[in-house]
């Protein structure tokens, strides 16, 4: 911005509009010295560590892995590369949502510190197009404006695949998510709260987890 350009004719009015902000201590407060070096050091530490990070680090979306045919209850998973980009809703609309198919697994989810009152129980069926994850969710607050909830299945190594998005605006009730990967390779189910138009799609911060629980194969 050139310092000698002609400014607006109502300079005084414009700055007066922001007088409260210009007088606020928060506007002028600086972060502590050394914070930048801490950020760079933390990032370098992440780069050295393996991508299979502990739960309190950001995890990247993985590729959907190719799977060979297995026991009769599993579908073949098609191999595809998942771009690290905006998280895509993978909800597949089917008339019955797989409700009449045999139960492949069950899940019981607990709320995290971010949403301590939330719980969910569910069953996973295998109707043919993917694994239908039917949850009965209680205590999960309606997603505030600008945010939404997203389900993920997670491998022991920390790879994650999105299984769909939802909002809970109607209150407690049923949520149906869909997984296109072999769930014995992704045995954890996680729900996070995401921000719309956030460019960190395809991944989440562990601090955003609101519900989590292991998938238990049906015996």
């Amino acid at each position, binding site marked *: 911005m050139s310092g000698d350009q002609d400014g*607006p004719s109502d300079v005084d009015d414009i700055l007066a509009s*922001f007088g*409260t902000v210009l007088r606020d201590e928060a*506007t002028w*407060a600086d972060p502590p010295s050394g*914070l*930048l070096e801490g950020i760079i050091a933390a990032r370098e530490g992440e780069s050295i560590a393996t991508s299979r990070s502990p739960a309190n680090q950001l995890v990247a979306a993985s590729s959907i892995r190719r799977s060979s045919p297995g026991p009769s209850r599993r579908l073949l998973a098609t191999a595809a590369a998942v771009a690290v980009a905006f998280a895509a809703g993978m909800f597949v609309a089917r008339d019955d949502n797989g409700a009449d198919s045999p139960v492949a697994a069950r899940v019981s989810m607990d709320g995290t510190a971010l949403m301590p009152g939330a719980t969910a129980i569910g069953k996973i069926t295998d109707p043919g197009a993917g694994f239908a994850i039917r949850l009965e969710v209680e205590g999960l607050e309606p997603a505030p*404006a600008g945010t939404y909830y997203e389900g993920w299945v997670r491998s022991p190594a920390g790879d994650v695949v999105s299984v769909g998005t939802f909002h809970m605006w109607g209150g407690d009730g049923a949520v149906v998510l869909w997984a296109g990967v072999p769930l014995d390779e992704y045995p954890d189910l996680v729900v996070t709260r995401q921000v719309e138009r956030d460019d*960190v799609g395809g991944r989440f911060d562990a601090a955003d987890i609101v519900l989590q629980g292991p998938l238990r194969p049906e015996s």
Partner: protein
Amino acid sequence: MTDGDRELARRFPAADDDVIRDVYARFGGAVHTVAISIVREPARAADVVQSTFLNAWRAAATFDPSRELGPWLYTIARRQAIDAYRKERHLTVTDPADLDIVDLPPSLERVWEAFQVRAAVDALDPVEREVMRLAWFEDLTHPDIADRLGIPIGTVKSRSHRAQRRLAVALAHLRTPSAPNQSPVGDVVSDNRASIREGKHE
């Protein structure tokens, strides 16, 4: 978007140490303003700044360089700060009945405005910035500013005049009545016309 900000946006996807340092120098203060405005505690605000830049760095490869980097960072900072605010409330509130159904910190419209103001003052040259800080935040007269900075009062007046014009150019869009939602997450910015400028700041 200024030429400098446009160049930062172009470089950002590379995510090397140099560009992160430059982005931090340009927007670190504004991100901190968002953090401290919401969590209101310096140590947690510093954590929010750190998590914001780490998250931004991790997502750098997906950033569209044709976008404005500042509002994108603001979105990340806002989310990190709100989550930190909520976690603190969950940890300190012992009776769940005391938690609001919609548990949000106040004045998110003001936070967006504060981010823009801080980014604008940080784009001033150091002397202009300090003159603005002393005038607005410490409420000093021009003679007092001249004494504090050890520069002639004429220099204070000319720097003040120039800085105010630059700030007005940078912030005028936030006041445009006909513009749709200004903040990157849909908050409607109200038309603030209340404050009365004092003559000492001319």
